[in-house]
């Protein structure tokens, strides 16, 4: 070793110089990047837009809509799309470095939390008109009495069923909980489960459980109630009777869709964003009905998904006004219809539902629910994540943790 060191020291020096150059390179590149970025954001005729629509059809459709609206309000657009899971991270980072964009898209349950941090401008002050939008949708974007976001389109979940399988078994799509149980049991044969849903231990699992909980009168403020326990008992019954795979505690909604398309599940709870995947499967014919309710004649209360457009506090009042105009334009009737049809969502203005469902009947089960949709953050606002965690924890404890629904909910509620 020692002998070698002496000989190679000269060579190593030049290597070190090379290494040093390599280390400095990213710094130099970073400086260039930063300079370019701030120059474009500094210009007064450009609006910076941040969203997570980074894959088609959303990517292209939204790009067209944003560019067109930019022309309408007379501003250039500099748009950035980040992967969905890194958006909040990016927003927090931009919050602390005071580099928030002029127009920001947020997933609707996040709006109140970001509004609570003070990073968003109230839209009422900027002259935004929100008339015609369903109340539940507005509630999600309202924090302490002020509207902070405007959401053009929404989606929710419903019961998808395999037409051929149900027909062969002589089963009609269930409308009540009892029907759901008997239909699921009847459809469970061989390697095929009758029913599939996601009970995963993330907000996705909570989102899938909410229609059962809410339709039975359960409430997120206090989940230790007989109504919520009955809803949880229903899911537990389905799993205990082997109509629902135990693997559902580890399934995301994408996994549920995979089970359905592979013929391993005859019915599933899922959303319209799966149309693309489902339509690609040859020979698969599916129908969609609202999620079954506790008793006949009851109403399904589902949570809604989708994103709202907000205007961050950038300190530049003129630009904030222009940004608000852009948000208003993105929420125009024309845009709502166009984007609904293109992305398999429904307009948040119930009056526009017919224009969409007449062209895409599959969306009817979702559009019908819009007036009754309930916001996840409607009651608890920024405290929602804590409640959502309690709900999926209780669901998992009851389904596989060996607890009764009552005990699981009580333990979760009391932390």
């Amino acid at each position: 070793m020692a002998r070698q060191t002496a000989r190679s020291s000269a060579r190593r020096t030049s290597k070190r110089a090379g290494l040093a150059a390599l280390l400095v390179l990213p710094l130099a590149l970073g400086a260039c990047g930063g300079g370019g970025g701030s120059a474009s954001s500094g210009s007064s005729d450009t609006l910076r837009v941040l969203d997570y629509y980074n894959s088609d059809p959303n990517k292209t459709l939204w790009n067209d809509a944003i560019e067109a609206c930019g022309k309408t309000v007379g501003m250039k657009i500099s748009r950035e799309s980040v992967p969905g899971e890194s958006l909040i991270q990016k927003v927090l980072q931009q919050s602390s470095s005071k580099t928030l964009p002029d127009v920001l898209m947020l997933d609707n349950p996040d709006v109140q939390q970001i509004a609570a941090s003070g990073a968003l401008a109230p839209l009422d002050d900027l002259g935004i008109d929100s008339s015609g939008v369903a109340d539940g949708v507005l509630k999600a974007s309202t924090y302490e009495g002020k509207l902070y976001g405007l959401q053009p389109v929404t989606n929710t979940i419903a019961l998808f069923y395999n037409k051929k399988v149900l027909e062969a078994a002589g089963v009609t799509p269930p409308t009540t909980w009892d029907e759901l149980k008997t239909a699921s049991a009847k459809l469970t044969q061989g390697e095929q489960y009758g029913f599939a849903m996601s009970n995963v231990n993330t907000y996705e699992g909570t989102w899938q459980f909410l229609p059962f909980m809410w339709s039975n009168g359960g409430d997120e403020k206090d989940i230790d109630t007989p109504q919520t326990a009955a809803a949880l008992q229903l899911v537990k019954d389905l799993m205990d009777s082997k109509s629902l795979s135990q693997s559902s505690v580890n399934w995301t909604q994408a996994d549920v869709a995979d089970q359905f398309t592979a013929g391993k599940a005859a019915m599933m709870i899922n959303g319209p964003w799966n149309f693309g995947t489902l339509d690609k499967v040859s020979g698969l014919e599916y129908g969609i009905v609202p999620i079954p309710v506790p008793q006949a004649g009851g109403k399904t209360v589902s949570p809604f998904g989708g994103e709202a457009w907000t205007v961050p506090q950038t300190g530049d009042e003129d630009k904030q006004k222009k940004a608000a105009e852009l948000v208003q334009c993105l929420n125009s009737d024309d845009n709502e219809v166009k984007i609904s049809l293109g992305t398999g969502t429904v307009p948040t203005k119930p009056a526009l539902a017919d224009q969409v469902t007449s062209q895409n009947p599959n969306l009817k089960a979702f559009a019908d629910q819009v007036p009754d949709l309930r916001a996840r953050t409607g009651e608890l606002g920024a405290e929602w994540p804590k409640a959502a965690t309690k709900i999926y924890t209780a669901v998992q404890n009851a389904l596989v943790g060996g607890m009764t629904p009552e005990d699981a909910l009580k333990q979760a509620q009391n932390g």
Partner: protein
Amino acid sequence: MADASVGSTSVASRTAPPASEPAGRGAGQKLRTRLVEVAFIVPAVVYLVLFFGYPVVKNVLMGFQEYTTKTFYTGEAPWVGLSNYSAVVGNAIFDRTLWNTVLFTAGSIVGQFALGLAIALFFHKRFALSGVLRSLILLPWLIPMIAGTAVWRWILDTDNGALNRILSAIPGLDLNPNWLTSPQLALVAVIGVNIWLGIPFNMTILYGGLQEIPEELYEAGALDGATGWRAFRHITWPMLRPVVTVVLVLGVVYTLKVLDVILGLTNGGPANSTQTISTFSYDMSFRQFDFGQGAALGNILILISLVFAVVYLRINRKAVDE
């Protein structure tokens, strides 16, 4: 540490001025040498302070602050004393996560070490294709973690997984374990996958240690009748001991903070049965946005790791002294 001191003394001795030279020139040269030394040390110190010191200090401070999404915009993070710590320790699942962390670490280390050593011993004897096979065992190291866990999720699936398909093909065995979805089995399954991931590390280091043992020892031992198990017991094991302690202590420190394997396989579930302190901390910070409590959990984990780091340093110093 030891390396650095050896390096500096050799530099000093090489540049020490001969007695005949004028004193002034010698002092100047000494100063230059010192400057060069400092110039080499400064980048390392700056790097350490910036990328290790700052995050650790920041994390320790965050543990005593109410640090939420609001903090990012307003910059305000009120001091709350020990309330983050009392909140996380008082959390209903804290005891469970602590126990899971212990089980996960102990189970992983025992499995990785035993299998790694067995494979290292196996490859110590050269045979046809042994080199190729040995490099194939490194594969788990090369596969991106998220891809590896996705494949394992598929293998361990209850209804359609490869493992259960194989089990059901064995006649007379009526088994269909819920590997990842039963709270009793999930931790076992997660430990199993982590063992698979850790084998390459253990095998590589232990194999290196085996190569260092002089062949003459075995020849001499064989003359005295020490072959097979007795050769391992009285020659291999004592000679390998320094390497073993390094492997074990590093293994513990790495395993304590494992996050991606668990997130990819079970996300801490079902019913928190695979939730460890590190996944709990991740959940607090990046799902519930309570960065203060997340940092408190992170600090608890750092403390536990620190105990093992100190053990490592002590063992290492003893080895150098010997």
